[in-house]
């Protein structure tokens, strides 16, 4: 809509030039005031500002020479200015003001007045020769100095046309406006909704400075515009989000826009280079550069016209604007996300065929190296479409099938297909969403939810084959995402699918994941922002107010597999009987209280009727060997509470019988636990580099796996009916019954991934042995102080002093020996033992 406003303003401006060009050249000019009109004629040199009253009828006569000098000529508001023939207007630092509603009456044409006050300035003489009706009027600017531009300004908009040459011809067939310039600069700064600050700038360089833009409007209601530009640069900056978008076209060919009387628009354009970047805070988020771009489009702009006219679109109107489009480019460098990097593609072609007979509605092809890529959608059906004058969109779009395939080259063949893709919106406020996008530079699920009654995206069947084996790797049936407010006014997000299987790959850690879920549902309900809840898990904990949300995950079975270079892990949950409940349920509340600043997760897991198996296979190089862990839980119910602030507080309780089967090199122990309860309470975890507020909840997993410095403090309690301990040959080594273990405190601290301090206090264990003997034991304190890398055992004081003591004892021994020798020599009688000497 804004573009159409610019077009109207531009036409108005041109009209002004034309009007100036038809003022006559009269040496004895003056201003004559009559009852009906104000007539300007001859030569008029202003010595003061000239302001006409509002609603004046002004006639500028033939041959008029008007010298504005440094003054202002103001035609007043809602005036009518009739321009009869050639005229010259000189100006240094003065200005011409055409106020709101003032229309210009040309020979054979009436131009409506502008919506805003328009100011025209230039330094030089603006001359016109000829007449519009007969030969066409030509306007040129003869500059006095270096400033060769004609400046126009309205509201916050500025336009500068360098070396302007305007030719305007009117005849019975219509009007023909030719505008020539070397450069044209347009800029505007404005504020949307009182708080969105935008700056836009358009910079055009002409290929033909005599006719850069030609607009032909015929009386048969056709419109044709031809642009002969060498380059175009369009920049948009949103201060709120610090987002800059730049579009640059270089080496442009002739661009034509033709609109016929049926509002069918045909556009043809080309450019040697097209470059688009989107950045926030100077950091490029998206980037695309194409070479030798050719663009042809045929579109029905009836819908646009209706919107521009601010009328509601009738559902019966065809919303399919583009009837055909063909874009080609030789090469392209595209960066969709920074993480994925820049992708180089060639032989790009995008075709849209919106005709009823078309076999393919959308086809995009490109080469990725030696690899041929194709995206195809046979049809795009708007089963319903309605848009209101305030841009609220209600629609149900249906794409029966969309496919993507890639083959050729060294990489594996890829094939993707989505059937019955639906996008549904109900009262989606497009305008508001756009403004919110400008504010933040991104859109959130909550904004979609806030600005619509319903947003739904669904896929009947989705299948992906990424390894070229002609077998589907990723499948999903009846996948649906729904954002809506429920009957109680709570925001809800519902993700459901009949089944889902997908492989994932973590490039950074070179880990593959294979996920497979049976019929599942994720239901999130909150009276506050769902996006903030999502962000709390994945980005940062930042709630705008007290928050309480409930999330329920229900699944009738799942398999999660992680494949690493050194092994793999797998979690499988299946029903353990046909009578099992429809789903295992994991319900948790996320709660944020502003006055405590604490975010609490309170979860409960119930897998009654389900068997959960965790397996882990690990390969070790030194010494070479493997380990296999298999942990089986049946009918598990568990609860967990995690509270995030500066530290993580946690407690958990698990009720389950379980079986632990481990193969570790040649060791094959197995533990059978009877009905067991494991409880952890008073848990506190401090991770040195983990800040839940700025990193989100899930980042804790990365920090733990990275072995950051940590302090953990907790209490543990375990009860179990029995534990069977099996040896490597699976025979039962021991059975202990009625186990009750409680540990009042476990305290562990890892410093610089080097020194582990561990203290265990008040361990109490009670169990019954295989022979029925009740054993009760208590360990008051246990210290484990272990140096990982640089053991430095304390030196025994006896060892420390051994050298000096050895010397001392040696001296005394020597002295004693000497004394004994002397005595032996001098008094041999006293060496006669066993005989009384008295």
């Amino acid at each position: 809509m804004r573009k159409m406003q610019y077009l109207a303003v531009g036409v108005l401006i041109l009209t002004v030039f034309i009007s100036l060009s038809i003022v006559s050249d009269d040496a004895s000019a003056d201003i004559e005031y009559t009852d009906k009109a104000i007539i300007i004629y001859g030569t008029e040199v202003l010595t003061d500002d000239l302001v006409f009253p509002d609603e004046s009828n002004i006639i500028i006569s033939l041959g008029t020479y008007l010298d504005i000098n440094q003054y202002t000529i103001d035609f007043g508001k809602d005036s009518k200015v009739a321009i009869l023939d050639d005229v010259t207007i000189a100006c240094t630092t003065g200005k011409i003001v055409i106020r709101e509603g003032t229309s210009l009456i040309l020979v054979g044409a009436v131009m409506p007045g502008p919506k805003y006050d328009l100011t025209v300035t230039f330094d030089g003489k603006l001359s016109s020769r000829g007449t519009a009706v007969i030969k066409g009027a030509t306007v040129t600017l003869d500059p006095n100095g270096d400033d060769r531009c004609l400046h126009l300004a309205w509201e916050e908009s500025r336009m500068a046309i360098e070396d302007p040459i305007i030719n305007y011809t009117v005849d019975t067939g219509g009007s023909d406006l030719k505008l020539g310039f070397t450069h044209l600069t347009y800029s505007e700064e404005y504020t949307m909704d009182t708080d969105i600050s935008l700056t836009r700038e358009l910079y055009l360089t002409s290929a033909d400075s005599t006719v850069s833009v030609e607009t032909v409007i015929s009386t048969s209601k056709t419109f044709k515009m031809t642009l002969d530009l060498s380059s175009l640069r369009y920049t948009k900056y949103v201060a709120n989000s610090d987002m800059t978008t730049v579009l640059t076209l270089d080496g442009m060919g002739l661009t034509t826009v033709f609109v016929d009387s049926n509002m069918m628009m045909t556009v043809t354009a080309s450019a040697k280079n097209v470059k688009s970047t989107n950045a926030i805070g100077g950091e490029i988020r998206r980037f695309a550069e194409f070479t030798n771009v050719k663009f042809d489009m045929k579109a029905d702009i009836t819908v646009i016209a209706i919107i521009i006219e601010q009328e509601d679109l009738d559902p019966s109107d065809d919303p399919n604007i583009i009837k055909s489009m063909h874009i080609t480019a030789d090469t392209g460098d595209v960066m969709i996300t920074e993480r994925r990097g820049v992708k180089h593609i060639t032989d790009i072609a995008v075709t849209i065929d919106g005709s009823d007979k078309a076999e393919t509605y959308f086809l995009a092809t490109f080469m990725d190296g030696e690899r041929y890529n194709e995206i195809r959608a046979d049809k795009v059906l708007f089963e319903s479409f309605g848009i209101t004058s305030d841009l609220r969109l209600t629609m149900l779009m249906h794409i029966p099938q969309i496919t993507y395939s890639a083959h050729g080259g060294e990489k594996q063949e890829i094939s993707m297909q989505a059937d019955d893709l639906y996008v549904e919106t109900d009262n989606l406020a497009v305008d508001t969403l756009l403004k919110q996008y400008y504010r933040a530079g991104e859109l959130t699920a909550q904004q979609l939810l806030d600005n619509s009654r319903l947003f739904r995206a669904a896929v009947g069947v989705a299948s992906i084959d990424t390894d070229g084996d002609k077998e589907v790797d990723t499948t999903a049936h009846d996948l649906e995402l729904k954002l809506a407010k429920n009957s109680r006014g709570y925001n809800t997000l519902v993700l459901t699918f009949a089944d889902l299987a997908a492989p994932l790959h973590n490039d950074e850690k070179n880990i593959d994941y294979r996920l497979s879920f049976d019929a599942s549902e994720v239901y999130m309900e909150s009276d506050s922002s769902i996006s903030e809840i999502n962000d709390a898990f994945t980005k940062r904990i930042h709630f705008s107010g007290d928050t309480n949300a409930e999330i329920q995950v229900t699944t009738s079975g799942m398999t999660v597999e992680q494949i690493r270079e050194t092994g793999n892990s797998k979690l499988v949950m299946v029903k353990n009987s046909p009578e099992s409940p429809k789903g295992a349920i994991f319900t948790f509340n996320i709660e944020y209280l502003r006055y405590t600043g604490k975010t609490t997760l309170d979860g409960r897991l119930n897998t009654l009727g389900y068997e959960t198996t965790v397996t882990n296979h690990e390969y070790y190089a030194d010494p070479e060997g493997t380990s296999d862990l298999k942990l089986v839980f049946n009918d598990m119910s568990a609860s967990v509470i995690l509270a995030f602030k500066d530290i993580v507080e946690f407690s958990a309780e698990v009720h389950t019988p379980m079986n632990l089967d481990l193969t570790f090199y040649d060791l094959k122990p197995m533990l059978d636990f009877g009905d067991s309860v494991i409880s952890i309470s008073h848990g506190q975890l401090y991770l040195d580099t983990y800040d839940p507020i700025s990193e989100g909840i899930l980042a804790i997993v990365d920090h733990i796996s990275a072995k950051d410095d940590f302090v953990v403090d907790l209490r543990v309690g375990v009860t179990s009916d029995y534990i069977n301990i099996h040896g490597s040959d699976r025979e039962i080594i021991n059975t202990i019954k009625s186990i009750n273990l409680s540990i009042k405190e476990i305290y562990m601290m890892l410093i610089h991934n080097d020194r582990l301090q561990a203290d265990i206090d008040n361990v109490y264990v009670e169990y019954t042995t295989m022979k029925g003997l009740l054993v009760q034991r208590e360990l008051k304190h246990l210290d484990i102080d272990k140096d990982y890398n640089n053991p430095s055992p304390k030196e025994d004081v006896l060892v420390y002093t051994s050298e000096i003591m050895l010397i001392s004892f040696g001296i005394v021994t020597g002295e004693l020996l000497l004394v004994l020798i002397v005595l032996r020599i001098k008094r041999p009688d006293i060496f006669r033992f066993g005989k009384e000497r008295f």
Partner: protein
Amino acid sequence: MAMDEAILKKMPALCLLSFSTFLVCVPAAYNQVISFNLMFDMNCFPSKDYAWYFPMFIAGECASMGLSACLIDRYGRRLPFLFGSVLFIPSSAICAVCGDSTVFLACRFIEGFGAGIVIVTCIAQIYFDVPDKKNRYMANGIMSLGFGGGMLFGIFLGRALVETVGWPVAFWTVAVLQAVVMYPCMDILRNGENSKMKADIPGALILMVMAGVLVFFLQKLYLSWDVTDTVGIEWIVFLFMLFLALILVEVVNPQSIFHRKFDNHKLVAGSMIFIFLLGVIDMAAVGCMIKIAFFTYQMSVGEAAPYFIILVLGAAVTAVTISKTIDRTGHFPWFLLSAVLSPIALLSMLLVDKDDPAIFMALHLFVLGLAIGCLVSMLNATIQNRTDHNNNGAVMSFAIMFRTIALWIGYNFYTVFSDRFMDEKLGETMAHWSQITQIDLPADSNLASLLVTPLADLIKIFPGLTDQIAEVFGEGISYGLTVGAIAFVVIAIPVTILLVGRNKTL
């Protein structure tokens, strides 16, 4: 029959003293077999404090025996017995109630100190209570039954009580019982004549320090020190210095023990050497056999006890036989028999079948009992008969101390020998498992001792390791016993021939 009547008359008193000896010896070996329960209760898990619980008692016991050498002849048996009991009873009680490892260690030393005094006073009392020299052989047999039986029973009782009703009960039991028998024992100990000679206090003090330090040093060597280290050399020099100091004070003091009268120096010297052999090879072997029963054959207390009762019976057979025939045979055949029987007993261990140990283990222990019985009472009586009231207590104290130290040395010898053997056989295997589990697993008898702890279940997880440990530990001890047998023969036969002589004087 006259001899029998005389000994029968004194039997109640002897038995009571023997029982008192038995009581104070019982707690000595309470901690010989590792107990996690006690470690937990003393808050010393997993430190090495536990390794000192047994040696501290022995150190105290040996030290007090050294000190007693100067006390009991000059001041009689009664007061030292009271002193020993006063140390033993409360320290045992504190051991029963304390929960601190350091306090427990200190009390174990004091308990051993008291026990040592009680033991030597009771044995020395035979001199007065049994004036007949032949009867002293029987009397010493009874007393040795108290000593050896106490040590042996202590291991089983300790293991049984500590793992069931708890170690406090074990300590309370001996404390209370010793308190009960203390007064009647003191009444018995009134009998006797005090020496008029001055107490050899300097010599006794030096001997006390030497004995205690030697036990301490041996344990340090076993745990962490090496004789080639500076600290090892330092303590050897220190012991040598004490030895020289002892010689000096004994030489210059005209009333020193060394200057008191002995009959038949050669026989006394030979007996002392045999006492050393008895302790270091035969009696220490008994300790090792108990470990073999527990570790190698995985016997319970109830399963192992009968075998060691057989050993006691074997000892009784030779002890009784000697006491009845010594006047006719003299000492020589028994020394000679011992020199033959001990090696046979030790070597018979090699015949024990690892799969079915019952018969040969019983036989082996019976023969070992016979060998011990040959010496244990005879040596004491032989020495006792060569002293008078001026040096009887001192010499008996020294002899018992010497035997206890020898026992400790022998115990360490077999342990070190089996450790080396196990390390050689299992070192590579355990290094492999240590590397895999990232746990510093021992490859010596400490590993074997884990088989009688709750960690046995963990050891059993290592495939075949339990059997391997048991077998290698048994083999290690067997080789140690073989070396002991050879050493016994090499030393005992020349000593018998050169020092014992054929004189039949008792």
